């Protein structure tokens, strides 16, 4: 159980005087000391300050676009780019400021490419911009070893896929895009989990894995829902079942991640509910609706019971 929550619970029960609660949390190192505050302020002010400054620069370009000459535009963007690279070189990629500079360079690469496309009217599609962007920044992202940069890069790959599918609608079936996105995000999830296991990354740093699992789960659930609603291919349903089985094996048997298991339960409850809705509501009677209601509530209660059982097991360990 979360230590902070436990201490608050004891205070609520009167086991710790309310005037002593802050002292109790400090004793258990759950409140920041002066060093903790300095570290937090350093990161927050640096990150937010950089972000607002870079955003201001981007907004400035957007505001003055028509009035700025072609070469001035390139000069401004490339100057900002060079400043980021200079900071990265001086500060190193392991420091926080260096990582912020690297992130700035990654984002400005995209700005530069968009500027090229707009200025020279190359006729390139959007997907080509995202593709080139992801290709060019890949070495930096790989060397940077920063989770946020990797997620930005994966975001670019997803955007590239979506814009490619939109540009070539004739080549894609309706659910092909979902299959592509599912494949990309699931592959990223598998690789990231393997790397986390190899490098013994602590569980509380696994938020990128949860984000990827959410993306992968959302795609496969949408595919399953499409199959249920359209009574179409069984391949989606099979893939969904395999995905669920794999999630269960990896995140229940090999290790426990309650967030990912909750996502899996939600996927089951939503898909099964839609399935029953399709087959029961056609009868159009009060009895069908009552049955459907009890099924939905029963499924979600069963899912909640199972998750709570796992939570209690984790609590006892």
């Amino acid at each position, binding site marked *: 159980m979360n230590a902070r929550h436990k201490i608050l619970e004891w205070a609520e029960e009167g086991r710790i005087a309310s005037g002593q609660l802050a002292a109790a949390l400090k004793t258990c190192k759950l409140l920041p000391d002066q060093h903790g505050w300095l570290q937090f302020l350093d990161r927050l002010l640096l990150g937010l*300050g950089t972000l607002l400054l870079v955003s201001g620069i981007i907004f400035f370009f957007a505001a003055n676009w028509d009035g700025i000459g072609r070469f001035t535009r390139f000069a401004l963007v490339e100057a900002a780019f060079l400043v980021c690279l200079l900071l990265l070189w001086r500060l190193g990629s392991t420091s926080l400021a260096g990582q912020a500079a690297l992130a700035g360079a990654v984002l400005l690469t995209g700005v530069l490419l968009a500027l090229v496309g707009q200025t020279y009217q190359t006729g390139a599609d959007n997907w080509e911009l995202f593709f080139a962007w992801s290709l060019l920044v890949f070495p930096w992202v790989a060397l940077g070893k920063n989770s946020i940069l990797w997620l930005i890069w994966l975001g670019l790959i997803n955007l590239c896929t979506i814009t490619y599918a939109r540009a070539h609608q004739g080549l894609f079936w309706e659910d092909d895009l979902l299959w592509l996105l599912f494949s990309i995000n699931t592959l990223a999830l598998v690789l990231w989990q393997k790397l986390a296991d190899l490098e013994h990354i602590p569980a509380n740093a696994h938020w990128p894995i949860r984000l990827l699992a959410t993306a992968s789960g959302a795609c496969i659930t949408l595919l399953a829902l499409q199959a249920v609603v359209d009574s179409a291919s069984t391949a989606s349903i099979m893939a969904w079942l395999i995905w669920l089985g794999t999630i269960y094996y990896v995140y229940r048997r090999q290790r426990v991640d309650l967030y990912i298991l909750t996502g899996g339960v939600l996927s089951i409850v939503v898909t099964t509910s839609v399935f029953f809705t399709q087959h029961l509501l056609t009868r159009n009677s009060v009895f069908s609706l009552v049955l459907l209601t009890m099924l939905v509530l029963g499924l979600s209660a069963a899912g909640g019971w199972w998750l709570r059982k796992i939570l209690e097991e984790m609590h006892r360990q």
Partner: protein
Amino acid sequence: MNTDNTTLWRQLQQAKLVTGAHAPEQTAAATPWYMRAMLAFMGWIGALLILAVLFTGLSGMLESNTGRLGIAIILGLIALLLFRGRENQDFRMQFALALSLAAQILVFWSLSSMLLPQQPVVAALVVMMLALVLLAGIPNSIHRLWSAGIASLALLYLIGQFGMAPVAGAILGGAACWLWQKEFVLVRWGSILRPLAWAITLTALVQLSGEGLHSLLQLLFSRQSSMQPELLVLRGAITLGIIILVTHTMLKEAGIKTFRLSGLAAMAVLFLLAFFIPGIGFSLLLALVAFSRGNHLLAGMAVASLLLFLSKYYYLLDISLLHKSLLLAVSGLLLLALRLLIMHLSASGAAK
């Protein structure tokens, strides 16, 4: 951080903060936010299905306010009885939640047809009172969050009805920061006040995301403002008051004198951000309060909302893109300057 009961109790015992040789028996584990979100979502779906059942089977009774209120009372009483069970009896709690939500929807429907549009203030007050009674009376964490959400929305509506919509974000944001800062002092009522704090925080964030830049800057740059001057002054005063109160408390807890250079600089920067870019300013203040309370979930949410506000800021039409760019760049530089000042002062303090 996961630590067992015994270790925590021993640490507190050694610091003479608790009495008793042994830690209390382990209670049930706290349900994480994502599980609660899932159960709340499914409860909401269940409520809609129950309403569908009622509409299909009892459509005649639902046509009148009396019929709707009668059914709502019956559903509510059944829900109340079911809520008396233990929170981990899942089917019972889910069913009770769905019944209660369905009952409340029927009540809101009846109130709106009886009192709107002639008496909107009375309607909002009744809804708020009902929600607060349910917040205090129903001992279920998800239901408490729902009731707190309804009460916050009713409060927001009331503020708007009194012509103070442009300052609603400041009022709600201030209330949220105050509640979170008082979390330890008011811990005995934590199970009621914590959902309320969460609900007001989320309502404030939603309100701030919709608020435009009704400000002095708009007045200066565009020679007109959609906000009356008195409201502008009131918003400034409320914002300044909140910043001083919240920052003073945090600095006092950290053992720093408020009116030293770093404290004054921090207050000035926070005020400028909160007044001119309300969403970003409030999120930053919330992140600081959350960190001071060791509440990592709230701090994470505050940082995420900072990013969302920044992306939404591009689309605000109150002032031009050029003025927005200047505001952002200046704000960024101020934050970086504040960081340098704090690091410099702490380094020179350490050297002494």
